[in-house]
């Protein structure tokens, strides 16, 4: 008896090793799989590419037959595997190249995200709800992968993709039953967080570091390199002339050294502000903006990115996510009272439920951000 028990315990411990082992392959960097998926995309005409974008954004209804005709099945299969890879996403950006660092992935990843959304819409149109939800989660993962790289362009692309997915889910969710809605909400909550604006802004220091290295070069190489990147020679536009003029003055070596020191100081302050809640961070960013305008430094005004708009964007996406959470929780039962129990990410003001002239419902934030633009999530089609 004792022997039998020991043998049974031993066999139990060995059981996992006896199962078919499909985990001995290391997970692949999703970036590499995204590029493979991009390479498998068939050639699309301008009209087809536009149609794909408009189906993804909901501007036109998705026609599953049209999607089939595009011949994107192979790319789509690989895309799903790319998004599902648990390995860290590394786009291989050469940060030491500063402003010359190539980022071809940011355009392609948007195209792939649109494909995922159209696959979702086609699945819903054909009654395959579970598959459609899986494609929505794929698109959410694509958004997070697109934000990797610690730079503001990646952050903006992440925000654009996530916003499109949230809007797409909001169009469909009123048609799901409660269990489906809550299951989706759980899966959404389990996803890794979006890359923060602070993390992305921190990475922008590579431009300053690059310029500091260039500033140490001997002439004429130093000036040649700076002109190569920043001077829009041969371009007769007013913008180019203005940029060339503004870059001429700070490019003397000692002047540039002082400009870069000022950029570093302002960058540190801006990065700190990006990590704060909106009510604290916004006034700090306004003060930094004022200091920049009064500084007398030319390059500072050009190199310091348009930080304010990127900062706001994080809160816009967070508010849209809260709106979707409200819709997933309550579905068609959502009313003004229930909507008011949810708050925007800016000043914590209650959300409102608005009925438009076409009978559609929208959740809307109390304040417009940026100025003049409503933060609104349209529910249903």
């Amino acid at each position, binding site marked *: 008896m004792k022997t039998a028990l020991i043998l049974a315990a031993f066999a139990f411990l060995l059981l996992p090793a006896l199962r078919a082992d499909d985990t001995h392959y290391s997970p692949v960097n999703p970036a590499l799989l995204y590029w493979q998926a991009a390479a498998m995309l068939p050639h699309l005409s301008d009209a087809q590419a536009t149609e794909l974008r408009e189906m993804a954004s909901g501007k036109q209804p998705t026609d599953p037959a049209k999607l089939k005709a595009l011949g994107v099945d192979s790319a789509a299969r690989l895309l799903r595997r790319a998004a599902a890879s648990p390995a860290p996403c590394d786009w291989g950006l050469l940060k030491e190249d500063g402003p010359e660092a190539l980022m071809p992935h940011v355009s392609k990843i*948007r195209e792939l995200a649109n494909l995922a959304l159209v696959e979702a819409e086609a699945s819903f149109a054909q009654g395959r709800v579970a598959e459609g939800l899986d494609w929505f989660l794929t698109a959410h993962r694509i958004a997070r992968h697109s934000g990797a790289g610690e730079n503001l362009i990646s952050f903006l692309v992440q925000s654009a993709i996530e916003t499109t997915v949230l809007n797409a889910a909001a169009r469909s969710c009123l048609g799901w039953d409660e269990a489906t809605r809550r299951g989706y909400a759980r899966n959404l909550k389990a996803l890794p967080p979006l890359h923060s604006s602070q993390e992305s802004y921190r990475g922008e220091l590579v431009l300053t570091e690059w310029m500091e290295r260039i500033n140490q070069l001997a002439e004429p190489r130093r000036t040649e390199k700076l002109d190569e990147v920043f001077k829009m020679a041969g371009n007769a536009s007013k913008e180019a002339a203005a940029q060339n003029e503004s870059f001429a003055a700070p490019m003397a070596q000692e002047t540039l050294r002082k400009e870069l020191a000022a950029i570093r100081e302002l960058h540190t302050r801006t990065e700190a502000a990006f990590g704060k809640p909106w009510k604290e961070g916004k006034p700090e960013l306004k003060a930094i903006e004022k200091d920049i305008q009064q500084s007398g430094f030319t390059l500072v005004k050009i190199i310091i990115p348009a930080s304010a708009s990127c900062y706001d964007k994080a809160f816009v996406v967070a508010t849209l996510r809260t709106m979707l959470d409200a819709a997933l929780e309550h579905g068609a039962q959502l009313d003004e009272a229930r909507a008011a129990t949810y708050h925007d990410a800016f000043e914590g003001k209650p959300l409102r439920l608005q009925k438009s002239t076409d009978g559609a419902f929208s959740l809307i934030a109390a304040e417009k951000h940026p100025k003049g633009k409503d933060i609104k999530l349209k529910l249903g089609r």
Partner: protein
Amino acid sequence: MKNTGPQNDDTAAVREALQRDAGRVQLPPFNAALHHATMRRIRTLASADHAPLWWRVALPAVAVIVIGMGIAVWHFGPTPRTTDGTVAAAMAITVPRASSWTYQRTAAQGDEALLAMLDRDARTLLPPSAPAFSTPLH
């Protein structure tokens, strides 16, 4: 009147000796072909020495000018136009289009400008290479 004296006698003696020696030399028969060939050669050499110098300067100079113009036309020639007719300034801007700086400057013009550029870039970057990825198993 004949000059007489000791020096004149010596000169006369030498002259007479040379004439006696010359009489003993047998001259070969006249070779007309050799004569004419030699004259032609002499005339050719004489005409080369008198060729105009300006040929020697003009020909190389013209060659340099023509080659230089060819290089200039190739390098600085008409600016290429894109398919939509806009003048391509890409020759003057060496920073690649899909670079961090390019996207940042476009983002400064607003979200719509950045997204429009990304949509355009997605169409032209990495054109499909179906043969490399197609498989008969599918």
